């Protein structure tokens, strides 16, 4: 492993503080990654680890993309967008030695689900206590909960390997790919039939249908179904919500599926750890360096040009941006096959989530729990029934935000006390639904009204909440797009719909992190396996880059291959790195 001389210098200076006028040599790298979100930095770290002199260019003044933590009020730290950790691949933690750089996922030990009638469901770490708590709502559901967890964990065990490998290329003639396909096929053939059927039911059906098979209690179903709608324009009764449920349960904390952690200082704390790890491997990160376009010559990438005209050269350019920006903005679509451009234009974003964050004067009380506050150590899930969630979705179907939104809340200062001054609190609420496109209005008009709607919803469950609010921050899908650059504010860089997943993410034939432009790669959440702070796209894309290098040649693309690729026919072998 080669460590470049960038290591020490970067460690000693603030990121992006390099002021020396760069010489020509300073502008030539082995690889350039566009975007310092968590996938961009993961990708760069793996490239640097393999000995490549790697530069990350970031438009904003901070690393992290959508995973940032900001001190909006002295002593109050907000997880502006992304707010918890679960899907991060464990191999990345180890391979990039993140622990050495401060990686610290703190267990969120409970889930609190208030009900509209003042009751609640509070689940924690004790199996027996959870049984009794569920029995308060339905005696039937206590062991049904175990059965559900057992069945779903088998599905998760079966599909988890897919998260850690590049999607298959079914049209490839590459022997290596054929062997991989055969192994994958064999794995599925050996699956228990029920497990396979459950998996397909979840991947194609609705969360409601699946949950109804197990449970009768509204509060339990509401809680479970909440994971089935996050970030996606579906309701729990929509076909396709099962996939979103499954995806969120795939996360793990210390080996436990479906468990979530709060990273020290939030996900912004995590991306700072990742930046340190990348820098220690030699990655150079330049902030406030917006890339205007990828420079291509004769169908291959040769570098990037910044908006200020500055140019950096590299034979490898990796876009960590979403598919729309990767294919339609950073390069000239005329350089791409028409079918691919068409498919990317049809790729669904339609962000549907917002964030409302609060600085609080103290921890709110829940009337039924008196002075207790330990219920807030995990998520507070305001989605008391599937019907509540579906009605919230109804508003969004017709172009408006929910009158009674689903809220995934967390008082993060109860898990990491450094997030707020002593005795104070920060409350993060993920809000759904808030469609990117509003009918006959716009988000600049509706922003604070959305904040009011969210606050009123919280107030209805936590009387007196409003009197604790010191400051409120509303981040609509438009704000997510403007600030982070995620098209239409989609938190996953592209919706989680079956036709946009796996070997179809972001487009059939181009799911292997390569593009039709030689030397130009994609590593954002718009590639497999998708969104959440996971890092897998970044890592898998790095593997694709390194494999191409290892093979001693970068992929060549003929005009014929381009034309054929979009049809999904025999020309796609080019995509397999042949």
């Amino acid at each position: 492993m080669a460590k470049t001389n960038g290591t020490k210098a970067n460690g000693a200076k603030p990121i992006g503080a390099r002021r020396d006028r760069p010489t020509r040599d300073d502008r030539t790298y082995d690889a350039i990654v566009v975007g310092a979100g968590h996938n961009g930095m993961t990708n760069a770290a793996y490239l640097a680890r393999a000995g490549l002199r790697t530069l990350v260019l970031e438009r904003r003044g901070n690393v992290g993309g959508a995973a940032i933590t900001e001190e909006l009020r002295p002593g109050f730290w907000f997880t502006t967008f992304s707010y918890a950790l679960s899907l991060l691949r464990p191999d990345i933690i180890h391979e990039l030695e993140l622990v050495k750089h401060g990686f610290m996922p703190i267990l969120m030990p409970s889930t609190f689900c208030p009900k509209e009638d003042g009751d609640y469901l509070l689940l924690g770490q004790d199996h027996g206590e959870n049984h009794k708590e569920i029995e308060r709502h339905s005696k039937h559901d206590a062991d049904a909960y175990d059965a559900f967890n057992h069945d779903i964990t088998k599905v998760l065990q079966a599909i988890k390997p897919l998260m850690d490998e590049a999607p298959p290329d079914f049209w490839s003639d590459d022997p290596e790919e054929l062997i991989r396909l055969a192994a994958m096929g064999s794995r599925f053939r050996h699956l228990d039939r029920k497990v396979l059927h459950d998996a397909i039911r979840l991947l194609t059906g609705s969360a409601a249908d699946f949950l109804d098979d197990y449970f009768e209690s509204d509060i339990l179903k509401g809680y479970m179904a909440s994971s089935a709608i996050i970030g996606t324009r579906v309701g729990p009764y929509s076909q396709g919500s099962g996939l979103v449920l499954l995806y969120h349960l795939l996360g793990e904390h210390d080996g436990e599926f479906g468990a979530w952690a709060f990273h020290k200082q939030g996900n912004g704390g995590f991306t700072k750890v990742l930046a340190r790890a990348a820098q220690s491997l030699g990655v150079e990160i330049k902030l406030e360096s917006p890339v205007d376009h990828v420079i291509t010559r004769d169908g291959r990438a040769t570098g990037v040009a910044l908006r200020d005209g500055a140019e950096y050269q590299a034979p490898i350019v990796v876009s960590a941006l979403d598919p729309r920006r990767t294919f339609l903005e950073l390069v000239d679509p005329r350089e791409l096959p028409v079918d691919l451009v068409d498919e990317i234009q049809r790729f669904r974003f339609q962000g549907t989530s917002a964030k409302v964050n609060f600085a609080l004067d103290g921890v709110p009380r829940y009337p039924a729990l008196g002075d207790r506050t330990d219920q807030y150590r995990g998520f507070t899930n305001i989605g008391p029934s599937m019907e509540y969630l579906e009605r919230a979705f109804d508003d969004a179907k017709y172009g408006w935000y929910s009158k009674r939104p689903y809220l995934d809340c967390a008082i993060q200062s109860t898990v990491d006390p450094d997030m707020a001054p002593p005795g104070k609190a920060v409350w993060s609420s993920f809000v759904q639904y808030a469609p990117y496109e509003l009918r006959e209005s716009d988000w600049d008009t509706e922003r604070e009204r959305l904040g009011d709607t969210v606050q009123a919803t919280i107030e209805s469950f936590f009387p007196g909440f409003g009197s604790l609010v010191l400051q409120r921050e509303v981040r609509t899908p438009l704000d997510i797009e403007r600030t982070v650059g995620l098209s239409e504010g989609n938190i996953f860089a592209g919706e989680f719909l079956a036709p946009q997943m796996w070997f179809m993410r972001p487009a059939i034939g181009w799911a292997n992190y390569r593009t039709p432009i030689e030397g130009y790669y994609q590593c954002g959440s718009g590639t497999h396996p998708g969104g959440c702070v996971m890092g897998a796209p970044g890592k898998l894309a790095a593997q694709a880059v390194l494999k191409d290098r290892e093979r001693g040649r970068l992929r060549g693309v003929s005009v014929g291959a381009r034309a054929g690729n979009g049809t999904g026919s025999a020309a796609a072998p080019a995509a397999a790195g042949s």
Partner: protein
Amino acid sequence: MIRTTPFHERTSALNETGLWEHWSNSLVAQRYQMSEKFEYFAIRNAAGMFDTSPLYKYRIAGPDAERFLGGVLARDPHKLAVGHAHYTLWCDDRGFVIEDGVLLHVADDEYLLTAAEPNLAYFEGLTGRLDVSVEDVTEDWGILSVQGPYARDLLAAVAPVTEDLGYFGVTRTEVAGVPVLVSRTGYTGDLGYEIWTPAADALRVWDAVAAAGAGRGVIPFGMTALYMARIEAGLVLLDVDFHSSRFAWTDADRTTPIELGLGWMFRDLAPVDAGNGSGGNGAAAAGRNGHDDRGGRAFIGGEAIKTELREKTSRWQLTGLVVDWRDYDRIYDAAGLIPPKDHTPIQDEYYIYDDALNQLGYATSQMYSPMLQRHIALARVPLALTAPGSKVKLELPVAHRYEYFDAHVTRPPLFNPQRRTA
């Protein structure tokens, strides 16, 4: 009849689980909350309060106190000025460890010493004609341990004089009007303090510390979280990582301090050319002789330890192990199981092998460390394998049969934040 500690009125109100352990016939919480892992994170990320009162406590006083301790304890008390404490141990005359504890030099001719088990008869039997008294003061004191990154702030809030207290420093001060002793010590490997309070006033001290921590995520933690922290910190536990030589049946159950990885205690005894076999830094030993003008301190077991250092006769050494995460997942995956990452400390023997499955040694404590994101262990390995990175295999049952997990040797402490000593 089980007893309670001076803090019991508070700890029993806070213990939501009803789970208690019997520690020297006193009730101490196993965990206060359903999640001991949350308590553990309080130690590592905020601060935790721990009732360590059941420890045996001895007051050693008199004009010959230092002489007495110099002959009994393995570390030289002559070097311990008033207002300082150190971790020490006592050996039998063959250089095998009897027990360990913390010695606090609280005044001229007055010390306090902690111990896990009763040792009064042993100590009294060694006073001879010295002008020294050894008194069991266990019941006189409650000890409240405050451990974690916020510990300095909390202590400074209740006893400002402690703010500048150095690592292993001791001071007399007051908390909530109660005269107390505060030492910057603990059993977690983190920044931490222990407050010795007269038993009768213990609740006032607890309340003052709890009030200082209110709204800051400061919670009490139980034995399980303590064990998690101590394994990460590489701190040994009696009857787990070693046994008292007084009550061991065979030498296989006895251990020397050097074998226990505590060779650094004897830098002043080590021959100048002693390598690193002791686990300490032999090179640093030069020029640090004790007060004995014959060139060596005279304490029980000292001659044997010198011989062990000189002739390198240690049989093995306690060291850290880190299990290979990839191998761990691979073995469980192959068995059709989800690889468990269970933080619950396993304080039991598991065997260590070479590639040909010849037994090399054994692990005495192990767990999955949430901070390190690895399965870790404390283990006795042959001297040839003490170099960090040495490969061994750890035997663990998986699906009702033994499997052999790749692991490598590392030097404890496995977790050692700068704040601990800063």
